[in-house]
């Protein structure tokens, strides 16, 4: 195998490992750090996948790293500092359970990807990794109680969609991708404000409290 294929594979493997890091940690700061690492990897990926470096790809890489590895993690770190939450205490599905679910999601993603028609991209790992990132994002989004971890899950979900978009990197217009990045940025910004208000209202970030009626 040539180096030109090794590096994208390695980056994709590290993305999957960062997914598992998010699934397996109780500490929210470690979760956010894993998400930031994933953001950097996502930024590198279009550069190493491309045969030649164009302005489009360079701008995409810089924008992705700046938003996904810089602003969003910083913002989440600010949120947990303001709200003084450190750990995911009791998730709905336990940590071992979610690791096992994550492994199952990985198996499923590879099984589905094997049946999809071949895409234009030469990197065959891209589709299964993007599918598994989406599924693991869903698992984090639905199985955790703290609002911050749910935002992390949402961002992983979005990262998976971004990865899937990379299979079409040549044909998707640049502005569209920037638009998506902006959407996510605004979305997380709003979530941050909501998180802050949940915390002020209930003195905790436990989103299960939102199901109780009170006046």
């Amino acid at each position, binding site marked *: 195998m040539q180096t030109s294929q090794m590096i994208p*594979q390695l980056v994709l493997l590290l993305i999957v490992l960062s997914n598992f890091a998010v699934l397996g940690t109780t500490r929210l700061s470690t979760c956010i750090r894993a998400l930031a690492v994933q953001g950097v990897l996502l930024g590198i990926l279009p550069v190493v996948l491309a045969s030649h470096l164009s302005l489009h790809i360079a701008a995409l890489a810089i924008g992705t790293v700046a938003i996904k590895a810089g602003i969003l993690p910083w913002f989440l770190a600010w949120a947990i500092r303001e709200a003084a939450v450190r750990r995911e205490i009791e998730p709905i599905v336990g940590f071992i359970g979610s*690791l096992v679910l994550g492994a199952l999601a990985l198996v499923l993603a590879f099984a589905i990807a094997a049946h999809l028609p071949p895409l234009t991209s030469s990197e065959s790992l891209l589709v299964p990794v993007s599918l598994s990132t989406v599924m693991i994002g869903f698992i984090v989004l639905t199985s955790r109680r703290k609002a911050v971890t749910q935002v992390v899950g949402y961002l992983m979900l979005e990262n998976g969609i971004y990865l899937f978009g990379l299979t079409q990197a040549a044909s998707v217009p640049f502005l569209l991708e920037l638009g998506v990045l902006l959407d996510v940025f605004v979305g997380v910004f709003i979530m941050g404000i909501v998180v802050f208000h949940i915390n002020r209202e209930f003195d905790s970030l436990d989103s299960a409290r939102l199901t109780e009626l009170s006046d």
Partner: protein
Amino acid sequence: MTWHAFAALAITLIIAPALPGIATKTKSVLTGRRGAPVLQLYFDIWKLLRKGAVYSTTTTWVFRAGPVVVLASLLGAAVLFPLDGREAVARFSGDLVAFAALVALARFALVLAGLDTGSSFEGMGASREVTFATFAEPALFLCFVALVLATGELSLSGMLGAALTATWPRTAAPLLLVAMSLFVLLLAENSRVPVDDPATHLELTMIHEVIVLDHSGPDLALILYASSLKLALFAALVMGVLVPRAAWPEPIALTVLPVGLGLVAVGVGVVESNMARLRLTRVPQLLVGAGALALFGIILLLR
């Protein structure tokens, strides 16, 4: 079966007690202390061998048989393992199951000897040891399955020998995942830091140390030597996956063996100086994570 398989076995048997010393020394240097000499375990074993053994009146022959069975089964595992990266002293198809079974037999004998004393501390340690083994063994077998898939060989000598060298360029990524998983298993199986603290002095927090609390004299020497041999075997496993040596000239492959084992021990020391031990309830999570890594490797190989 050739002379270098025996030479590699002899080298491993001789340097095994130095490995815990290297790990402790690394940890001491990194945390700014001087630390015990690297050869401390040799001195300890020599000291213990000259002493008499004390047996509690509640113990039976199970307790006396324990250390011997532990050492014998680990020696058997070492005979099956291709320490020079080429060929083991003995090999047969499916000997990887025998390897895992011998390691498990050693643990079983140790746990029985611990339970035989009737001490509640040792029973607690035994229960923890077995609990963690329940999670570690499936992960070990997942690693073996990945290696079998990568090389198409069913014996340890085959899958860590020439076939591995041939397959490395194609399967680098899954093999790296397997090596990571095996390193976590090394830490768990040998009671190193994120799972157990070899330097602890509180019975309630010990796992391995508490089981051997009642052993003394030559019995303890056998157990100390056996556990250093187990560390050497797992280090050789990690090293065997990472550095396929089958294509190298024999003298170089033999020289690299102690260097590689020493480097894995240094890695253990680095992990120990960087991490606190995990809460007992978090350990299964670590081991399931190691299993997930190996499973990911398998998926990549099956693709």
